[in-house]
């Protein structure tokens, strides 16, 4: 455990020096504030408190931003060590590859958690500032923060796996961007296209829930929207959230990080310095 912590402290310090901490928090705060400002119009008639509405919009933001930040922080984790030539020496130390990855994960999760808390917190302050009744939505804000960390863990693990498979950081960066595009953007577009062609048939009722749960980003969205009962406030794919029991999206959200990290460790074990 002390070796994991030592690695985490070292990685956090490097991220601080490389301005990753400020970039991640800056991006989150900026986007959250823009959303809070833009989303301040349609309240009142929805019948829910202002913060819950903000959380619903933040969910849509986090689906894109959290995986992106996680992949940006993780693609260099192994390939960068290989390129700098620091990996052979590290691997002769009495520390296991699992411990190295967990240390990096801990540091990167701390940064993501910090960025999410500050970003969402800023948006929440705006919401509460204009509507004191918005304090009712604090539970959904808290849920959004920890589920963002879980979503981040999934994409961090995926990023480490890609970083181990690629020989160079540039290759790992390309793979990371491809993964982000496919998992976060194209996947949803494909589902939307299928829903439209299906016209409420068997695909929409049978396959769609499974397809949503199979993608960590969609599971995250479904979980937050259905938990906040804010399905009505969100359009598009999120509208399907009502059909999926909460425990299923929660399970997907919990199992994905484990699967991604297991994949990362398996890929890292294959790296010969």
């Amino acid at each position: 455990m002390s070796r994991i912590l030592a690695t985490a402290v070292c990685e956090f310090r490097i991220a601080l020096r490389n301005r990753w901490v400020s970039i991640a928090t800056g991006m989150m705060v900026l986007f959250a504030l823009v959303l809070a400002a833009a989303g301040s119009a349609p309240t009142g008639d929805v019948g829910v408190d202002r913060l819950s509405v903000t959380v619903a919009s933040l969910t849509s933001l986090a689906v894109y931003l959290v995986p992106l930040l996680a992949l940006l922080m993780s693609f260099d984790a192994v390939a960068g060590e290989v390129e700098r030539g620091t990996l052979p020496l590290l691997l002769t130390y009495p520390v296991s590859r699992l411990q190295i990855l967990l240390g990096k994960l801990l540091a990167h999760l701390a940064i993501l958690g910090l960025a999410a808390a500050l970003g969402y917190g800023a948006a929440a302050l705006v919401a509460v500032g204009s509507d004191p009744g918005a304090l009712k939505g604090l539970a959904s804000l808290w849920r959004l923060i920890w589920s963002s960390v879980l979503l981040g863990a999934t994409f961090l693990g995926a990023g480490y796996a890609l970083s181990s498979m690629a020989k160079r950081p540039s290759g790992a960066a390309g793979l990371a961007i491809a993964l982000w595009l496919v998992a976060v953007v194209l996947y949803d577009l494909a589902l939307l296209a299928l829903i439209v062609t299906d016209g409420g048939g068997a695909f929409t009722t049978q396959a769609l829930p499974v397809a949503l749960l199979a993608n960590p980003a969609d599971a995250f969205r479904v979980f937050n929207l259905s938990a906040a009962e804010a399905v009505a406030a969100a359009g598009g794919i999120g509208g399907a959230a009502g059909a999926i029991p909460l425990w299923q999206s929660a399970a997907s959200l919990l199992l994905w990080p484990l699967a991604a990290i297991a994949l990362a460790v398996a890929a890292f074990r294959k790296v010969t310095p």
Partner: protein
Amino acid sequence: MTPTLTISRLTKAFPGSAGRQRIQAVEALKQVSLTLEAGKRAALLGHNGAGKSTMMKIVLGLIPFDSGEVSVCGAHPGSPAARTRVAYLPENVAFHPALTGEEQLRHYLSLRGEDPRQAMELLARVGLTPAARRRIGTYSKGMRQRVGLAQTLIGRPRLLVLDEPTSGLDPVSRRDFYDLLDGLAAEGTAILLSSHVLTEVEARTDRILILSGGELVAEGTLADLRARAALPVSLLVRPAPGYAARLAAAFPEGSQDGDGLLRLACRQAEKLPLLARITMLGSAVADLDVIPPSLEDIYSHFSRRDGQ
């Protein structure tokens, strides 16, 4: 006492591939055997590609091997037990440029389960105190090498594996470095190092191992290798003015250059009789130099014999 490092009949081949074309496998090590006892310093010599780094990486457990046996402090190379007892200095050691020397060492100390507060003391031992709080990105190659050296001193390792440890160090730092090694060896650490600089290896190691084309072609103390190579001794005889022709006539086996300087070569056993013949010429000889075979000559002799 069991040796710190035992290697027997170690063989390693790299699967050859150039792009998509598979070419013949490269045999990096062939049936190499050696033992290294506690407190002994062994120098590994060889051309680039002779298999030095490959052997070191196998000892460290970084890469697998094909056949043979390797035992590091009684454990399998790369096992947690072996890793706690072995320290490594890679060739061209690198660190994260954003960390300071002190932070990097604190991290390495934590990974070995030692108190991170020893970092400054370790940096002082390699003469890096003034730069300890600067980022490693600003360090020169020699300074990075010292950080690398400092991390090998953590926690009294039983075996030190040093790949080209003195590259990038100036002559004074090199001497300090070997002084450090002497201290460690005296405490019982076994040291395996590779080097291109033969003259420094000569004085500061107990044993020399010469690798060539993946095979261990010679092993022993410098005196052993010198005797076994039995290379000729050179004698340079400078004639007194006007005596060049007489000197050449007396030693028809020698070769003479334009100035009249006569070069003779003989086996070790023939050296004294030859010297006697030269001194008999009396005032015809102005000066005389005896040049024993250099370490470079001995090294070339062994590494060429079975090599490429």
